[in-house]
């Protein structure tokens, strides 16, 4: 069977699809994109709006309180939320660089691999930094609850130190494993697929 035979068979396939009418196409233009980058962007926008709303709530709550442990707890959480806001903006700027659907397939795939890899790396690294911060915040709340003197006595006991080291290690391992697993499940497989396609394109 030659290419010309295949072409005539291919042409016969024009009639087998249920055509969309102009109205259906017009509705499609109003729809939202489900491309991988747009999905990522929508998730980050949701996180950003959530962080801003929580920050405002915490600010109002902190302002309504007199001095005390709850006020400092609210302020420390507010600072965390503000740091998250900057982090989400940075994530969005990384994603905004991921364009290029007009390029050829090779360039688009290379570009996507580079940018998705850097996005995922940024995601992983930022969580690696955030977990110790959460841990330290936990300690801070403990100080606020027990009082500084009691906390120092509590912290000087060898069993407490061992317990804290164990918990820190466990939290770090579990959270790092979870982040890696979550990212691989969400985007890692897609990235692997893109790498395989690029390998095939690079073969002669």
């Amino acid at each position: 069977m030659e290419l010309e035979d295949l072409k005539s068979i291919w042409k016969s396939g024009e009639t087998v699809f249920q055509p969309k009418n102009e109205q259906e196409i017009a509705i499609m233009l109003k729809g939202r994109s489900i491309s991988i980058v747009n999905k990522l962007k929508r998730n980050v926008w949701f996180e950003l709006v959530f962080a801003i709303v929580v920050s405002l709530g915490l600010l109002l709550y902190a302002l309504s309180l007199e001095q005390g442990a709850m006020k400092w707890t609210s302020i420390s959480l507010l600072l965390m939320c503000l740091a998250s806001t900057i982090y989400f903006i940075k994530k969005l700027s990384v994603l905004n660089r991921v364009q290029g659907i007009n390029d050829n397939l090779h360039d688009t795939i290379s570009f996507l691999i580079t940018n998705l890899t850097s996005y995922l790396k940024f995601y992983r690294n930022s969580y690696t930094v955030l977990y110790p911060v959460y841990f330290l915040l936990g300690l801070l709340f403990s100080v606020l609850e027990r009082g500084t003197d009691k906390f120092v006595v509590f912290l000087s006991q060898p069993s407490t130190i061992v317990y804290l080291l164990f918990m820190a290690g466990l939290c770090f391992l579990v959270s790092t494993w979870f982040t890696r697993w979550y990212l691989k499940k969400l985007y890692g497989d897609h990235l692997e697929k893109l790498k395989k396609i690029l390998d095939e394109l690079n073969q002669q």
Partner: protein
Amino acid sequence: MAIAEEKKFISLINEHQGLIHKVCIMYENDRDVRNDLFQEIVLQLWKSFSSFRGESKISTWMYRIALNTAISGYRKQTRLLKTEDLREMHLNISDAGSDDYDENFQKLQWAIRQLSEIERAMIMMALEEIPYEEIAETIGITQNNVRVRMNRIREKLKKLMCP
């Protein structure tokens, strides 16, 4: 002005929608996912419509965007297709099309789907009579490489269609 542009685009899609349908059916098994992919391709075409200068054939431009969307920009839920699963293939295609379905086209379609995603893209463009030069440009490889790969693809298709 924007409305006129939109009307022009819609009539263009209407005229060339067979191309988009073919890309969708070659890259997706599931009917609903195929509809999602069709919409995504239309959206991406619309996004880049203003930058289309008419330097290449309209079908080349459409293939470029459609293939980029189907292969790289779209995270799909794939299901492996068994080589002998012609019956299911027939059911899937029937979902999308007419009752008196052409058996040869069905067979060709099945054979193309056994190829890798890149090979599928190349043979689809070749069957649309897109010149090798434009295939090379769309895929991002040399013309010589296109020629070599096309020979291999033809051999594979021959074996699949006439075992």
